[in-house]
């Protein structure tokens, strides 16, 4: 039983940006309104779906819906759907289909595919409530939908029941996002001990980076890159991009650029690589080239981090109207797709501090890692609550993460709080990594550093802000 393709097309057209998540939401909301066309496969799963059934009541119909796209993953999805319709070994193929949707979500940055994967798990559980495969799939989906507590609960059940290395990795991921780094390290080590591979090495690299060990992160990510396979281009592109980022942070620009080029040769138009490439070009004030790369990246993955960076590039290139347009869209949709980055964006520009604070606090409810603490600290500071901002900032810095934005925020908050020595120290550390900051943040950092040099600290009462006039502070390049 399938949603008619033309209906899906109309649905997408109506929504405006064909992202499947919204389609799924609408399908759910209007479950009774759509008509399904029965297939004629005898004795197949498809036949068991009653005509005119609502998709909401029949997740199988949802996961068997037609998919557009013609890449390898799309073809795999279509093949798996057909196997399920054929009605043999359905549980196995549903599990495979679920993971194919996960792969598609990673490739396309469309979280709607995670919802489809979740529906696969749901169908399997309807047939076999004890299915560990379904639990694993569901836990992975929850993790990617930022439902970390639920993911942790399922992952703990899995490691207790059978303890595969991948399950320890999933548990570590859920713990890490909740800021429980020591427990996450333990879970990752179990994963590594059971099976060292790309996934284990990449997690070790990220954990080392979080703990401020950049050289160790590079070492581990090199092992991950070595373990990457042409059969899994997205994973290979991902680990190469992360290694490029580490090299960029270490000041090895040539190596970072080569890594990015290689990642893009493996996975053409890979959004995370394009984003990093754009950021590296921004660091060199090559605004036009940066904007080109970031346009592509933001088109593929229109979330706040990408749009914010793109707006900075466009503004640097003198395209103020375009930059403002991007920011307007960001204000309109950003809170729903990435509240944490939206909070940072608003706080950085001193816009709607109360909204920024609300978003950051909400995020902290589910995700309490160092970056959410930083977003909350920055929002608190923007709202004028420096005492709480100081406390949150200490939490953000507690793990020793070497991150330019953390240091920049810590320096400004310390300065505003009258902690001169701390301000100087954090601003200095931020300056050492200033290539990682956005142009407007770099400008403000320079201002702050200059101010610090003159007065040995900021005036406690001086309002910090990259503010609404940031655009004026950032020197636009003349377009030729």
């Amino acid at each position, binding site marked *: 039983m399938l949603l008619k393709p033309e209906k899906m097309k109309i649905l997408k057209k109506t929504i405006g940006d064909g992202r499947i998540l919204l389609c799924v939401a609408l399908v759910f909301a209007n479950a009774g309104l759509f008509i399904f066309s029965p297939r004629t496969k005898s004795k197949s799963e498809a036949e068991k779906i009653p005509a005119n059934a609502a998709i909401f009541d029949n997740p199988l119909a949802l996961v068997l819906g037609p998919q557009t796209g013609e890449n390898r993953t799309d073809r795999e999805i279509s093949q798996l759907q057909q196997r399920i319709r054929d009605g043999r070994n359905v549980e196995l193929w549903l599990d495979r289909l679920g993971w194919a949707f996960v792969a598609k979500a990673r490739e396309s940055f469309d979280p709607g595919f995670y919802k489809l994967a979740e529906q696969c798990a749901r169908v399997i559980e309807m047939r076999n409530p004890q299915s560990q495969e379904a639990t694993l799939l569901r836990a992975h989906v929850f993790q990617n939908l930022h439902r970390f507590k639920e993911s942790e609960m399922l992952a703990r059940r899995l490691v207790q029941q059978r303890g595969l290395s991948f399950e320890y990795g999933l548990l570590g991921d859920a713990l890490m996002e909740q800021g429980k780094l020591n427990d996450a390290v333990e879970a990752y080590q179990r994963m590594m001990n059971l*099976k*060292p591979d*790309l996934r284990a090495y990449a997690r070790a690299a990220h954990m*080392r980076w979080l703990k401020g060990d950049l*050289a160790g992160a590079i070492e581990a990510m090199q092992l991950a890159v070595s*373990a990457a*396979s*042409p059969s899994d281009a997205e994973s290979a592109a991902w680990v190469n991009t992360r290694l490029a980022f580490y090299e960029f942070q270490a000041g090895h620009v040539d190596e970072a650029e080569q890594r990015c080029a290689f990642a893009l040769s493996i996975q053409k138009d890979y959004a995370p690589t394009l984003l990093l490439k754009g950021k590296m070009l921004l660091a060199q004030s090559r605004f036009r080239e940066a904007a080109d790369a970031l346009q592509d990246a933001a088109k593929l993955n229109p979330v706040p981090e990408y749009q914010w960076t793109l707006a900075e590039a466009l503004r640097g290139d003198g395209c103020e109207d375009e930059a403002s347009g991007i920011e307007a869209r960001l204000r309109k949709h950003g809170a729903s797709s990435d509240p944490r980055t939206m909070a940072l964006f608003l706080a950085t520009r001193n816009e709607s501090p109360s909204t920024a604070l609300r978003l950051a606090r909400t995020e902290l409810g589910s995700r309490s890692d160092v970056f959410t603490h930083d977003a909350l600290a920055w929002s608190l500071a923007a709202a004028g609550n420096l005492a709480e901002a100081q406390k949150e900032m200490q939490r953000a810095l507690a793990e020793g993460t070497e991150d330019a934005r953390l240091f920049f925020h810590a320096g400004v908050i310390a300065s505003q709080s009258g902690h001169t020595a701390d301000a100087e120290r954090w601003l200095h550390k931020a300056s050492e990594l200033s290539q990682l900051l956005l142009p407007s943040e770099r400008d403000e950092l320079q201002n702050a550093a200059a101010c610090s040099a003159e007065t040995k600290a900021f005036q406690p009462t001086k309002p910090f802000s990259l503010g609404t006039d940031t655009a004026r502070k950032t020197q636009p390049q003349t377009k030729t």
Partner: protein
Amino acid sequence: MKKITYLLSRGVIALLAAHLIGAAQASSHMDAPLITLDPAANTTDVYAFVQNENGTKSLVTALGVYPFEEPGIGPNKYNFDDNVLYQIHVATGNDVAAGTATLSYEFKFNTTFRNQNTILQSYLGVINDVGDANQNLIQTYTVTKVDHRQGNHRTVLGTGTVPPNNQGIATPFYNQGNDGNNPAKDGVATESELDRYTTETIKNLGGGYFSFAGQRDDGFYGDINAIFDLLQLRSPGKDSQAGFNIHLMALVIPLTELGGDQQIVGVYATTSRRQITILRDETGRRPVRCGDPQLLGPWVQVARQGNPLFNEGLVAIADKDRYSRTSPESDNDLFRRYAVTPELARLINQIIFNGQLPDVETDRTDIAGIFIPDLIKVDLSTDRCRLAGNGTQQGANPDDPGFSRLGTFGGDTLVSQIQPGFGNGVIPGGWPNGRRFGDDVVDIAVTALISNLRVNPPIIRGPAGDGVDFNDVAYNKVFPYESTPQNGRNHSHP
């Protein structure tokens, strides 16, 4: 429902005694769920058989990795992984029954680039000779012998170079007419006929050792898709591995190193990766370079392979990763039940024979005798085994007279000097006495599973099979035996 085609062969019955080393299902191309995510370390097949070169017998061993390697993929190529430890293990004497390695042969790779400032990762132009200026990516390897009888004493046997992958225009000499547009060359009967790249990279390590490491065609053949699609076999079957390559490490071991030819040895292989600690302590934080052994933890075994099809066809999903992590020493405790009560035999009986063969489902001590411990057992006392070439009717490089893909089921036998076998020392000419390139391990395994080899005379049902009776590229009858790698520019999958 399409049934397995089988033909009863009375001649075969006489050859099958209860101690016949039997079989199982599909080779290890899609085995443990976790290792399939790590193809560089994912073993495909292990081979082991007796050859005789210029009057000197030796043991040929080989290990394949990278299942379903698509020829010609780029820019990120399939290459041996510098951070994987590839090992071929040989058990002798009492170690065979114990499942313990007596000697281990390690392959360790090192990758370099002539020019890193290019997107042309592997080829800068047409490669005329291995290692010439147009070969950008250079892999070399070191073979080390570890003697477990002497406190794991390590001896470096030598180093070799990996030939380029068969891309097409860039690597014309792999292909027919030395033209990169043509399909890969067929198998040959003599060393002088081998393609240039292979010839240039067969390494004489001295002392009777020869090695080769590089891309080859995947010589395994079988309708794996149909077997794992609820045994819905078809006629003709489709070779699931057709058109795909693997990466192969092959090593000729002189029998003097193993204690002579009056014995049965066991062969298996493993791959391992380095464990690292998630966090380095403060003292460990210093400038690092990738692969610095001082900064890396112990090797952790991530894959294991002995007889074809055991982990994939007999071991349950829940235990597949455990199999990958463990040694044959623990097979009797952990995995014997999968051989004694093979689920696949039950499925075949129920799905294909409507339950009419209950004797094949339980108490399969004959099957356990082959797989437990999971080593390929090779009787070294025989003459050299017969080799597969281009088939029986091909003039240029025919199969050796008497060669049968079905081994003993096809009347292809050898004579042992050290065991009675089926009588007068007659033993199988191919798997499960060793494993040759060209052995139809799927058909042999299915036939053994549906037969009852524990009674005298044994009840043979078959030979049965999957409808795939030959590889898509012919084998070489000279080292490294495995067929020429498929051309990235000109190959096809059925």
